[in-house]
């Protein structure tokens, strides 16, 4: 008898393992193992676990459907499109492949001079902006975390870009010559530009570190763009700063820690996970932006040349490079992040 019980338990264990693999088997097990007279607390727990698994699936079901129908399937189709020539009118594909001279990939990498140029420009832009946005938003978060009069107003102005830097508004600013004309005029009259220009000349006249200075000067020149795309990042950093207990700083101060030291020894390590979140968010934000030159070029090819195969190939090549970059960043930073719990 006891052997039997053991056997049935063993069987139940096996069943559980199988259940962990697919939903269908979960449903089967429910039918087969439910009437179990020896079933004590354990089998009840198992039933509960199964019920939970089914409930979990049901809750997530909308996403599964949406993912399969509107992301996985289109992705698969766009891979196929990128490997074939697409007839626009009937939407039929003729397979070409990847590694031959007629393929779309061959075309975009070796014949299309614009694609590589624009993709590299876009990657450069991301490489320029991501560190700039991180430093700027962290700096702003530290400032906005301090106590001063009118803090609420200042904060709400800094978070305004969350709304302003969206969709239709993004491209309008730079395209509007009226407003940029006024900007140039104001610049020329104030002489503010002249001061930074002189500073730039002095800094760049040095023998060493010119590329670094050039980089910083580029960033300073684009401080408006940086501020416009760091609304969310400031909020994330700010919330991170607010979770650091003030008692830590007090203890450090008692021990004779200067503000500089406590910044590097307390603030910086504890904000590490936020830095990670922000790096990934900023990169994704830039890569999926629709106002970039590359996206313009892609939609130009799509709407004027109707070469959908080439469009798909371009998006896929770009997406793979982006994915590679993200994975790289993730691999480098996720190990160094310190979690305080």
């Amino acid at each position, binding site marked *: 008898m006891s052997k039997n019980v053991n056997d049935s338990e063993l069987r139940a264990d096996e069943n559980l393992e199988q259940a962990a693999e697919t*939903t269908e088997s979960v449903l089967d097990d429910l039918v087969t193992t439910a009437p179990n007279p020896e079933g004590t607390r354990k089998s009840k727990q198992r039933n509960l676990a199964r019920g939970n698994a089914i409930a*979990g699936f049901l809750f*997530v079901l909308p996403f599964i459907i949406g993912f399969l129908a509107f992301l996985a399937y289109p992705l698969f189709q766009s891979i196929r499109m990128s490997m074939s020539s697409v007839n626009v009118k009937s939407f039929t594909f003729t397979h070409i492949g990847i590694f031959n001279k007629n393929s779309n990939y061959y075309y975009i990498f070796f014949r299309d001079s614009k694609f590589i140029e624009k993709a590299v420009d876009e990657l450069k832009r991301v490489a320029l902006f991501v560190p700039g946005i991180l430093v700027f938003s962290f700096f702003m978060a530290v400032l906005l975390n301090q106590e001063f009069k009118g803090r609420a107003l200042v*904060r709400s102005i800094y978070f305004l870009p969350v709304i302003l830097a*969206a969709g239709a508004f993004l491209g309008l600013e730079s395209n509007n010559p009226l407003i940029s004309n006024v900007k140039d005029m104001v610049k020329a009259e104030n002489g503010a530009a002249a001061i930074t220009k002189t500073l730039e000349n002095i800094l760049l006249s040095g023998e060493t570190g010119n590329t670094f200075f050039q980089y910083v000067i580029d960033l300073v020149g684009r401080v408006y763009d940086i501020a416009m795309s760091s609304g969310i990042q400031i909020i*994330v950093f700010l919330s991170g700063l607010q979770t650091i207990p003030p008692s830590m700083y007090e203890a450090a101060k008692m021990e004779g820690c200067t503000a500089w030291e406590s910044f590097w020894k307390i603030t910086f390590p504890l904000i590490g996970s936020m830095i*990670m979140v922000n790096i990934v968010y900023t990169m994704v934000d830039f890569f999926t932006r629709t106002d970039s030159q590359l996206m313009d070029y892609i939609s130009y090819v799509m709407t004027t040349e109707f070469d959908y195969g080439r469009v798909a190939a371009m998006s896929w090549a770009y997406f793979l490079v982006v994915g590679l970059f993200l994975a790289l960043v993730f691999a480098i930073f996720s190990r160094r992040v310190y979690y305080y719990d």
Partner: protein
Amino acid sequence: MTNTEKRTTFWERNRKSGGYLLRKRIWAWTFSIARGILLFGLCFMIVQPLLQKVSVSFMTQNDLYDKSITSIPRHFSTQAFSSAWIVLEKWVAFGNSLWLSAAVGLLQVLSCTLVGYGFARYKFPGKKLLFGCVILMLIVPPSTIITPLYMNFRNFFGTGLNLSKTGIPYLIMCATCSGYKAGLYIYMMRQHFRNEPKELEEAAYVDGCGRLRTFFQILLPGAIPMMVSVFLFAFVWQWTDTVYSRVFYPTADWKLVANRLANSGVLYDGTQKQLYGNLYQTPLIFQNQVQAAATLLVLAPLLIIYVVAQKSFVESVSQSGIKG
């Protein structure tokens, strides 16, 4: 009496500390002044384009050509706004955008709340893989899937239904968690439910509450602030979206504010051509003025929402940022 005592004590204390107190005081003052200047400058930089648009769109057309007028118009006029109002199709575009954004926001909130709860509280096989799919959804650039999506909607998954010129496909996408930025909303909702205490549900289960009832009666009321902010984000981003709407709604049939705004210069030129004949070319400067006014008109509802619900915007992000 006490005042003089205090005054003397500061200098005395300063002398006793060897000038440390004074130095500290001066340092604090300079720091806060520098911070004030910096913050003001950066705030001005963010707001300046908006202010510029306000001033430009209130100018008469003569003022635009007058180089001596930079910011304050000499002759006030609301001409630009009425032109922009015509370009934006009066109430039609606003109405369309309003119901579309509201519907999209609502569907996205409902579906993402369910899914977020499933991810936060239930263990089921393949959960990690599925959550990986959520992240994948976040990082896929829209341009990669938009053409196949368009094709699928022209011939709805082989059924021969052409839905490409109705709003239905996009609403279906939103209801199944694959609308614009849906991955982010799932993530936000999941983060919210993960932070709720588990005892809440356990108590409900012990009292004999079923899973659905627990979700709807116990957890949903607590999630309403987060749902509101997800709705607001979805609303704002749909209001200004031009990518999805351009594909799913051809501009000729569907008048949405974002699309009209993006082409406002050309559209204004079109209305002028109707008035003065096809040879008339609207000066670029007028087109830009109308564009500035149209931007303000489109932005106005969003600004109102932002001012009213700023807290909910900020708190939702900061909540989901924690333990990212």
